[in-house]
């Protein structure tokens, strides 16, 4: 579907025809609909904490409680190493990007099916749906980031200039969620098995990333190399390095960054290929 405007005053002529070509990403159209993206994100956030007594407090309680449990089990009971940083801070710093990623992935994966009533009634670029699901996690992330600041002050963990690199790692986490989310959301339209598998996938992925433990536990060699290819390994390492000077991410993180970009591109291609059938199948 192509929108061509001949002159500024002439009305846009939209041609409706069978799918052609194998990939066409209309960035101009996506930009046209930027306000809808904003409203979808805004709706997601508003609705999430409607009719809850604690409201936005949940943004704080959830990761804190999770971090406390992990710190107790892995730090206290199992006495795993945390590189001299209090285990709570150690876990919380990893949970921040992890929950951003996991939440974005889970929401994006089911986003198209959850918006079935929109897909079958109104036209807009379908890409907005998983995009909105991913972006809406950023607000929660920002709030829990403030909590982390508080924790660091409390435990007297000195910050460093490396902090300025944090947005890069946030971006990497979001791109990883986008790439995977594009595939999962489109697949879920056709195969509802996907939404059954997502929680399991997310859980497995968490234990394959150094969220609740330190990557020092992974034996060096091929295993370590493969482990580092996981983009979330790089993200978590990056966060710990930027926040309290743990070991910096390896050069393999760059490789995994490139892989993530490739996955996003492949996801876009796949998504655009099948998006015309969403309304017929969902």
């Amino acid at each position, binding site marked *: *579907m192509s929108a061509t405007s001949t002159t500024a005053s002439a009305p846009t002529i939209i041609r*409706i025809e069978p799918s052609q070509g194998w990939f066409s990403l209309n960035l101009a159209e996506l930009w046209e609909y930027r*306000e*809808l993206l904003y409203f979808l994100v805004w709706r997601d956030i508003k*609705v999430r904490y409607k009719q809850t007594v604690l409201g936005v407090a949940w943004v704080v309680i959830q990761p804190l409680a999770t971090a406390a449990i992990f710190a107790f089990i892995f730090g206290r009971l199992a006495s795993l190493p945390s590189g001299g940083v209090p285990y709570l801070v150690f876990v919380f710093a990893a949970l921040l990007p992890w929950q951003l990623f996991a939440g974005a992935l889970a929401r994006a994966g089911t986003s198209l099916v959850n918006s079935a009533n*929109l897909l079958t*009634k109104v*036209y*807009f670029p379908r890409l907005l749906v998983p995009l909105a699901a991913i972006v809406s996690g950023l607000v929660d992330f920002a709030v829990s980031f403030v909590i982390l600041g508080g924790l660091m002050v409390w435990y007297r963990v000195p910050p460093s200039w490396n902090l300025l690199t944090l947005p890069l790692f946030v971006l990497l986490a979001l791109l990883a969620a986008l790439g995977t989310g594009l595939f999962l959301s489109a697949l879920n339209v056709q195969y509802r098995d996907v939404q059954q598998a997502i929680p399991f996938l997310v859980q497995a992925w968490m234990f394959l990333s150094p969220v609740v433990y330190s990557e020092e536990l992974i034996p060096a060699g091929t295993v370590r190399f493969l482990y580092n290819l996981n983009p979330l390994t790089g993200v978590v390492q990056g966060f710990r390095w930027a926040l309290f000077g743990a070991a910096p991410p390896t050069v393999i993180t760059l490789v995994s960054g490139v892989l993530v970009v490739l996955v996003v591109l492949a996801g876009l291609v796949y998504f655009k290929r099948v998006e015309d059938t969403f309304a017929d199948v969902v």
Partner: protein
Amino acid sequence: MSDIVVRAQGLSKRYQIGASRLAYRTLRETLSQAPEASLRRIKSLVTPSHGPDKAKNLIWAVRNLSFEVTRGEVLGIIGRNGAGKSTLFKLLSRITRPTEGWAEVSGRVSSLLEVGTGFHPELTGRENIYLNGAILGMRKVEIGRKFDEIVAFAEVEKFIDTPVKHYSSGMFVRLAFSVAAHLEPDILIIDEVLSVGDAAFQQKCLGKMDEGRRGGRTVLFVSHNMGAVRRLCTSVLWLERGECRAVGRTEYVVGAYESTVLGLNQGAAASVALPGAGSPDAPGHGLRLHFLSEDRQPRSRFSLGEPWCVWFDFEIVRPVKHLIAALALTRLDGSPIQTIWSAPSDLSPGCYRGEYPITLPLAETELTVAVGLSSFERGFYDANGAGHVTITAEGARVAPLRSSSCGVLFSTSRPAIFGIGAAPDGAGKV
């Protein structure tokens, strides 16, 4: 400015039906069927035949539709359930893609296939107005500008900051429709949404639509309510099993639709039984109507300019004097075209037949036939809408006059033209 805003050419949409496609598939099903399916695919490559099982699972929801809509037109789309109306709308509003053919749409399109699309029950009326407006394609500033108007139109001022889940269903629908009604698209696609709210609100909605039409908006309107279609639409597209059965002026298409689909009479039968006597002491009653071509073949469809005739069979049970057997042709909108009276006769009991030759050379039309019997100008039997005849341009002996203002009857008189000297003052001058 007679520019065309919607142009469709051979637009078709095919769906696959059957157990495997009706519901979404699970991965296991696909995997377990994969070997079988790929085998079939290979087979079909070798022998490219369309097996019976393949054809059975494919259905053309819309097939080979070609039409044009000009700016400011209100096009009604009618047809029975499953005729492809919704699919056509989904194609034009880009929700789904055609299998074949194409359409061009110029300008902003808004489709109201259902009011309240994207409304979230937990959000307040205010929040939903913004959300729904954005989903329907409005800009934020635009919604802000029209906000008060939308709220006033929906009559929900007091509840605007209440979550819509607490709204009554009437309030909900009014608010949803109000947002939609304040869109300013170039082309508005509406599906049966006028059936919302109470009578007063419906009146307001019709007013709003009319306002839009006067503002040069093009409206595509699907409805089962022929009254609303007649009132609002300038032309009508009649779909049947995905294909275009008729397209043209509202009166003609709706008339034809009503007579064939809704069964207002026996439809296209060339011989029709007439109802019996109205009162037991009537001296006679109708038996049958027959429609025949010039060569006495029974038919109910005739070409422009082709002579045809009606036989009106009736029975006289009591001797009657000065009997006239009359026949009237009426258009489907009720306007009479022609009435023919037989010569008065004195009849004894028995069966009789009146023969009425007719030729209609000017306009395509759908006609109903009414007959009546009278004695000394006092009617004792009549049957309205008894038969149904189509006059078509197909195979016409005269070139059809497509002008919509052309009458049905042909006058044999040829008025003379003569000079009257200089033009009188004022006449013919601007």
